[in-house]
């Protein structure tokens, strides 16, 4: 698979503080990646290093096949970090024209990209008159100007109202559907869960996990169960080797699977034993639960 970004043993120290510690991962073409981690886990620092604004202490990284300089590679990348930064006295269109000059791309795309983010009718308004949501959308339009091979987004929905968050997510999903590689840094887990196929989990600058979202923890999922014959059900679950941990909250029983089993088979099994379930849900751990398990374990 074609790699877009390769990071090897990257370390960044700010004085005594180690913001990124010996980090390695690879971003491949066509996937949607999430970088997860609590605040201050080194997400933005890592992105800052590969985006040429933060100097690395040790290690190395390269874009694409490694034969281009970082700033030339960045012309093929679209990136937004933290908050939208534009010249307040220029209009949206003028700002984008400036970005076109920097990226060495034709100015014909400006209208098209403004249309994607729904700002075409406001293109002649000054940037300083924009709301935060509009600013963030303009930043996305700006990042798309060169039809980037990878789009990097750092906390793109930070500080937005629910409508704004929804708009941005929809735009990201549309872009992902077009086959653009996306790298999304966020501490909002449901955000990552909704759009990402792969994750890199960071804590205190160290990598805890990198790989597919659904393989983050080795788990076969769990059942949520309710039944009239409460004690009998518990008894069956506890004697079965298919189940490991069993949690009981009021009438709701949560049974974690040791081996794969689908809901239909389980229901049949219970019925054979004379237990009639009034509630049966099979679920996998949400990203949040997986994330907490992962960060607790270490």
């Amino acid at each position: 698979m074609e790699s877009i970004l390769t990071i090897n043993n990257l370390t960044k120290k700010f004085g005594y503080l180690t913001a990124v510690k010996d980090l390695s991962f690879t971003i491949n073409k066509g996937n949607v990646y999430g970088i997860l981690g609590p605040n201050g886990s080194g997400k933005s620092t890592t992105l800052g290093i590969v985006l040429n604004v933060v100097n690395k202490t040790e290690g190395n990284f390269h874009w694409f096949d490694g034969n281009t300089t970082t700033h030339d590679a960045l012309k093929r990348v679209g990136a937004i970090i933290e908050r939208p930064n534009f010249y307040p006295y220029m209009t949206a269109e003028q700002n984008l024209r400036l970005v076109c000059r920097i990226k060495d791309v034709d100015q014909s795309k400006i209208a098209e990209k403004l249309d994607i983010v729904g700002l075409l009718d406001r293109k002649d308004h000054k940037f300083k008159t924009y709301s935060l949501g509009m600013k963030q959308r303009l930043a996305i339009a700006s990042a798309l100007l060169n039809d980037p091979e990878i789009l990097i987004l750092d906390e793109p929905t930070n500080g937005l109202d629910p409508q704004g968050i929804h708009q941005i997510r929809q735009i990201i999903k549309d872009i992902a559907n077009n086959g653009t590689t996306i790298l999304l840094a966020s501490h909002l887990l449901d955000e990552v869960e909704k759009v990402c196929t792969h994750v890199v989990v960071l804590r205190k600058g160290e990598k805890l996990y990198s790989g597919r979202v659904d393989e983050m923890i080795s788990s076969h999922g769990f059942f949520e169960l309710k039944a009239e014959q409460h004690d009998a059900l518990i008894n069956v679950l506890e004697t079965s080797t298919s189940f490991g941990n069993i949690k009981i909250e009021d009438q709701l029983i949560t049974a974690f699977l040791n081996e794969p089993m689908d809901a239909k088979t389980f229901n049949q099994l219970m019925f054979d034993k004379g237990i009639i379930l009034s509630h049966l849900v099979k679920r996998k751990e949400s990203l949040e639960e997986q994330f907490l398990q992962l960060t607790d374990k270490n």
Partner: protein
Amino acid sequence: MLRLLQLELQKLLLNRASKVLIFISFILPFFVIILSSLRINFFGFFVLELGHYGLFNFPIVWHITTFFASQFKFFFAIVVVSMIGNEYSNKTIKQNLIDGLSKKEFILSKFYTIIFFSAVATILIFIICLCIGLYYSSISEPHLIFRELEFLFAYFLKLVGFFSLCLFLGMLVKRSAFALAFLFVLFILEWIIYGILAWKIDESTADKIQNFFPLKSMYKLIDQPFQRIAISKAPNGQDFMYDFAVHWYEIAIVMGWTAIFIFLSYRLLKNRDL
């Protein structure tokens, strides 16, 4: 190079504040010079016509106008300092780099702009001097007209050097107002060091050392023309003769400072985490 210059010009010319300052710094001195070259009648009491005093004769006109015009450089210095300060306060410097501008290109785009505006200012002053000079002077042979044209070159270098210093100070402190304050501090510092040197060693050695200081060396490129005017008027003027010429070593010192300031600006940016 053209791309970098276009980039910076767009940033400057769409900003109303810098547009006004650029206008003041380049257009105003020429108005002042043109006005002063006109006959000014003070309500019938007396007529002031500087041209009568031979101030606008070739070749002294090159010396006088470049000296006075360079006093207006401070307005453009504000522009230079604020074009760095704004990049930091809007965080657009970060965005520029992320968009694919290299740190070297960022500094170069500022430096090219400095050269561009200095060149425009020099060309404008050349045209105006020529017009005024031709009007007042009876000289018409080209080789006499273009004598002492080195003042024009010195003027250009002086602007480039001074603005490079402003660029460096802007990069150093990131805030426009503080950078201008630093400029003033540097000015005072140069005089304090001069004072100490003159006190500890002697005045002539201190003079020589002071000519290597950044601000003083730029000032020294075009010496004050007052004494020269006096010499041309006074009956035994040759007694007050002084060295007002533009020397190669003065040029070399200013060029050296310019190179140092631009290089240091680049180093600062390179080593900084944004």
